[in-house]
């Protein structure tokens, strides 16, 4: 995803002379090509997240389209008020890019765990929150975010993730159908869509074709697609690499209890899969964190299978 981001950035640099990239002293070698091509539009402000955001706000007030880059946990946490006021309150077109979202930096320790980034960014009125599942979604979403008139957040993961296996168009604010089936629907955000799709394919091979819907945009949330899925499902299994509160599980829960009954019937059951409300100590690898939360193709297959067999109460 990081590679896709730096390549999309270069394309944007070429097509839009207003684009300017600011980093909080991160992204070693990742942006060398951009920097070489656009030396004055590459700006390292140093390890200073408040300045990163405020400086971008000043640039946006002057008509530029800044993208700001740091580690997700640092940028969204430490500079929360700057994002809220300088970008949100002022409604400025700045793309906030958080690298290493969720537990992709799990082994770097708790300081680098970004399990609140989506929640924090979703709290700010008017801020678009995106969490792409793969490099293809980064490439497609980034130009759309830069063209928007307001602020946005883009969470990116690591290197080497595969593309999202869906032919649905990639549009900000719209979810994507990845697999179609019945009874059980997996809902995902971020790169967990890959193990989920693997699990869905395994279930289909057993004769249990389930639905997979992927939401790369958490805000504004595609409630129409969720309603469409809910109409043909008995169980929703919501999977995310984010803390318990303020992410996809919360979004779906809120919809379930507030949507009119003809859209969210009482028979619908929801199962949440993801990190709990906890600080993860002990230096686990990202894969180990995912394994502990039940986000592996095997565990998800089992979750899907038992949901399929369980009859709604």
């Amino acid at each position, binding site marked *: 995803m990081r590679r896709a981001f730096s390549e999309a950035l270069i394309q944007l640099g070429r097509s839009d*002379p207003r684009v*300017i990239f600011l980093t909080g002293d991160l992204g070693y070698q990742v942006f060398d090509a951009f920097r070489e091509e656009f030396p*004055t*539009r590459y*700006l390292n*402000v*140093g390890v*200073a997240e*408040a*300045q990163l*955001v*405020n*400086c*971008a*706000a*000043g*640039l*946006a*007030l*002057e*008509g*530029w389209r*800044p993208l700001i880059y740091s580690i997700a946990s640092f940028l969204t946490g430490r500079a929360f*008020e*700057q994002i809220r*006021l*300088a970008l949100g*309150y*002022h409604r400025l077109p700045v793309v906030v890019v958080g690298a290493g979202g969720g537990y992709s930096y799990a082994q770097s320790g708790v300081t680098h765990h970004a399990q609140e980034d989506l929640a924090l960014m979703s709290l700010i009125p008017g801020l678009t929150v995106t969490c792409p599942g793969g490099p293809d979604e980064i490439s497609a979403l980034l130009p759309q975010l830069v063209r928007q008139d307001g602020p946005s957040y883009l969470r990116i993961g690591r290197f080497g993730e595969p593309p999202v296996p869906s032919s649905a168009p990639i549009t900000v604010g719209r979810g994507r159908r990845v697999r179609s089936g019945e009874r059980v629907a997996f809902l995902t955000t971020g790169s967990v869509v890959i193990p989920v799709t693997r699990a869905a394919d395994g279930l289909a091979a057993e004769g249990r074709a389930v639905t997979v819907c992927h939401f790369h945009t958490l805000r504004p949330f595609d409630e129409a697609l969720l309603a469409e899925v809910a109409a043909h499902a008995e169980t929703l299994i919501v999977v995310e690499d984010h803390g318990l509160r303020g992410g996809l599980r919360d979004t779906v829960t809120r919809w379930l209890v507030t949507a009119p009954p003809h859209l969210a019937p009482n028979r619908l059951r929801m199962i949440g899969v993801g990190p709990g409300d906890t600080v993860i100590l002990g230096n686990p690898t990202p894969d180990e964190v995912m394994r502990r939360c039940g986000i592996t193709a095997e565990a998800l297959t089992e979750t899907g299978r038992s949901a399929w067999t369980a009859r709604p109460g």
Partner: protein
Amino acid sequence: MIPVPIPSGLTPSGTGLPATAAGIETLRRDARRARATCIQMAHDARHGHLKSALSCIDVLVALYGGFLNITPDTLCLPGRDRFLFSKGHAVTALYAVYALYGYLRPAELDDYCRTGGRLPDHPCRHALPLLEMSSGSLGYGLGIGTGMMYGMMLAGKPGRVVALLSDGECNEGSVWEAAMFAAAHGQNRLLAIIDYNGLQAVGRSAELMAPTEIAEKFQGFGWNARTIDGNDLEQVVETLAAVPFAPDRPSVLVARTRSGAGVSFMEDDLAWHYRAPSAEDLAKALAELGVAPLHREQP
């Protein structure tokens, strides 16, 4: 350099700083008028950070009365000087100075703190688009100013960026993050003015920050600094005329001011950070200033 088109001939010009004693005297009268206006607004709205507003009046009068190259008709021009009012709580001072120099109609000052009005308690750009930024939370103006300056330099736009900060605001780390950036980029068209009135919301600046000169702190960050009596308009004008203080560095003007300046019973008294003047306080203050508020016929 990025090809951002700039219409030619659009560098606005303000009136320029006064060079004569008579000119300074006019500014002094303007400052008294602005003070009377602030106190009337605070009295009417039963609200206002008067001590913070009164301390920075002279600086604002010198900026809008001559230093800034803007006029009410040239606020959209790309070559204008950008003024960032970072100490948003002192906004009655800014509104009064706006009215003084034609950016607001004096009658509009009655809108201060009115629900739905253009002049809220902390300045809001959505309500009043002539503002370059909204403020209220401290520590924003300098950082936003550095970004504007970078963007202006990149686009080849003339014009300077001036940010007015309070001394208490300099407690914020974001001020120093911005100071570091501005110096690293040699932003010589950036001017920070610190309204050093010595009093914060509930404490004294000298006790809350290390007992070193604020000018030295900025110098340590690579700025060129001058410290003056910020309530002496002659010094303010003379020092502003010397901006930039160095050809390759950002400038900081430390304006040593008196909180509540201009009204004897409000000076250096912490109570006037939040207190609204009573009718009696108002009458006493206006008598002392000897001028009427801009939006009232008589004191």
